[in-house]
């Protein structure tokens, strides 16, 4: 597949893609999943640490990619480890993207069905969602980036509005004492929180599309940091209002936070609709970019055009989303994907970077 030269994205666009990828289901479940492990209100520190880890991983990925500025990961992996291992790794990454898409799709369907549309069959919800996504990615990376640039400011504004409303029921005492139980619980929580930051791996295939690949490091840095701020605010507000014990038992704590207060007089009175709007758009963006990444991978692996894969992946994604029988299975799937990601994007890029550096500067001439 030839990367058409016109399909370029700017550095801010790359940043926006990273942010939108990272923010997804985590917005709703992070407070619980991290509080479950750590049992202390200090999980916001775990979140920050998790973010730092993600930044490091992201930078490694970028450095790896910058050695091959015009190629995506799918294309240059062969040069590092050879055709067979490379092909296998490619398949693994494609599977990861597919699984993430399916997971996001199903979580979205679950929340929508429960909170907004009680009687609607799941297939209607998922299929319309997938179709809009398909319509978008057919245009290539550029429309995707542009749409993300529209979604992001909306997300930011609505999210901040909603968070600040919840100050009404916020109790600082729920967050104290800081580090009351020591650092160990904080560290326990880091594993879960780091996994909420899966997203920078998209840089594996974004670098060749960027019109200034040198700035990719900046893009990752800014991208992860902004998502970090979002997550910290979420965790702080949720735990501040619900307290650690309250959070541990709720399935979708952030949503519960918004439902816990009413501001009478202000237009809506109930603001969970705003949060749901934000969240649907974020899931849409995560789903779209992973969908695109998987299609791109398959296309580059088989050296064919991308469009048949885009259509062909539709039923596969649907199946992946629908397999899980209940919400618990879904969450376990999510954890599995997280662990998979840890290996694929935590360890692997580092290994590859080392190998490629060892193999010497012969790659540097290919620019």
């Amino acid at each position, binding site marked *: 597949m030839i990367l058409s030269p016109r399909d370029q994205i700017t550095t801010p666009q790359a940043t926006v893609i990273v942010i939108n990828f990272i923010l997804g289901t985590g917005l709703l479940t992070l407070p619980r999943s991290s509080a479950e492990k750590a049992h202390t209100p200090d999980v916001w520190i775990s979140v920050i640490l998790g973010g730092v880890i993600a930044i490091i991983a992201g930078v490694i990925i970028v450095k790896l990619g910058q050695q091959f500025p015009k190629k995506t990961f799918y294309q240059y992996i062969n040069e590092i480890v050879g055709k067979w291992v490379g092909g296998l790794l490619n398949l693994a990454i494609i599977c990861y993207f597919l699984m993430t898409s399916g997971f996001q799709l199903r979580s979205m369907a679950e929340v929508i069905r*429960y*909170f*907004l*549309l*009680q*009687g*609607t*069959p799941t297939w*209607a919800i998922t*299929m*319309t969602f997938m*179709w809009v996504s*398909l*319509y978008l990615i*057919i245009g290539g990376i550029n429309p995707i980036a542009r749409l993300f640039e529209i979604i992001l400011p909306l997300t930011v504004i609505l999210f901040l509005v909603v968070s600040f409303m919840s100050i009404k*029921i916020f109790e600082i*005492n729920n967050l*104290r*004492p800081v580090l*009351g*139980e020591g650092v160990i619980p904080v560290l326990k929580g880091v594993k879960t929180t780091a996994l909420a930051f899966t997203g920078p791996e998209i840089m594996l295939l974004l670098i060749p599309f960027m019109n200034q690949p040198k700035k990719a490091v900046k893009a990752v840095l800014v991208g992860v940091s902004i998502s970090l701020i979002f997550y910290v605010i979420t965790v702080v507000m949720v735990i501040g*209002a*619900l*307290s*650690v*014990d*309250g959070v*541990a*038992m709720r399935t979708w704590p952030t949503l*519960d936070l918004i*439902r*816990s*207060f*009413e501001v009478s007089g202000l237009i809506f009175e*109930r603001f969970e609709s705003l949060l749901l709007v934000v969240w649907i758009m974020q899931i849409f963006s995560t789903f779209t970019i992973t969908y695109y990444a998987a299609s791109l991978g398959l296309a580059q692996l088989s050296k064919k055009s991308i*469009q048949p894969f885009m*259509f062909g992946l539709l039923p596969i994604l649907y199946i992946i989303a629908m397999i899980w029988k209940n919400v618990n299975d879904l969450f376990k799937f999510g954890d599995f994907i997280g662990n998979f990601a840890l290996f694929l994007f935590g360890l692997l890029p580092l290994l590859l970077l080392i190998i490629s550096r060892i193999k010497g500067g012969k790659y540097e001439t290919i620019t």
Partner: protein
Amino acid sequence: MKQSHSHIRPLFISISALLFLSLTGCWSSHEIEEQSLVIGLALDKGKQSSIEKKLNEQGEGYSKRNLITATYQFITPEVASSTTKQAGPQQKSYVNASETGDSNHQIVRELSLRSEQPLTGYHMKVVVISEDLAKSYKLEQLLNQNLRDSEVRLSCLVLISKGKASKTLETKTAGGIPAFRLVGIVENAYRSTRILPPMSYTKVESKIQSESSFLLQNVLSANGEVKFAGAAVIDGKTHTMTGFLNEEELEGITWITGKGKGGVVKSFDKETGQLFVYEIESMKSSIIPRVTGNNISFDVNIESDGRLSENWVLSGNAFESEFLKKAEKSFENEVKRLVGNVIEKMQKEYRVDVAGFGNHLRIENPKVWKKVKKDWDQTFSETPINYHVKLTIKDYGTLGS
């Protein structure tokens, strides 16, 4: 460079297929005017109403134990249209319906057998649980369905009632809606120290999960009138109601926690026996745990600013600071009395900590808290508490003497 449309056709085909399928139903659509909005719920000990008895005699009933009588207060479309179209003043603005059974959810669904408009819980504002029920069943069992439900919002308030809860949901005022009235009174917290900060489902649940004891506001009812009076003590371990604080004791609690936003303190001048009243503008309290070895004690420092708002002491001249000082001392003593009373009750009679002492210990000395948190209520009953009160009269209104 016109845009290529080579991929339009498969897109069109897929979207048409999708659209045709979707048009078959607007599955979740429930028109708003076909629903009844539940705005309040009262839970009483199971006792069938006369209608139920009659219906049961005719039908065969279903398997249930008559544990709970749930009274739902809702607004039906007829009621709503009559209020908006300004019908006669005698019209009631709400409807109450009761059902008896053992499962909350089943009871709600029972009501769908009796009325054509299904109930929706999105707008439920308040839940009143009667004393008897609260004493016999765990709170989280009674509220379980609501806490799980996606419809009922977690902002719903929880109140306890002495006597029948369903009576608090009745009113004789034309056009009045009892559930809204209850919620409205909660918002009067800035006018009295006898109103607790609102306990919503969220807060109740956090307290239950953390196994700490807490208070729930109590409501009395008589003849269609209600009054907020006192609070019920919910034990952290059993999650049932184990005690009751009367109005003055509740005042004491408000002073201890420092969460009051307004109110009055009445006191009597020692010399003349006349009363004067202090209006609270702001109050603040800090609870400081002191740990020495294995001994825990608490210092409570209460401060408040306010004004002299009513003075029956004829010889008192507010322009003189002597008098003001005397008044201050008198008020401080009154507050001390309230605080002392309630601490006594908490520690000796009910043996629970409902004023948040444990919380402060947790924040200041987490290590110690870890050790004592299991049986905190017991430990608390033996912890000495020292309290100091400092009141400042900032002004005295527009009248000097």
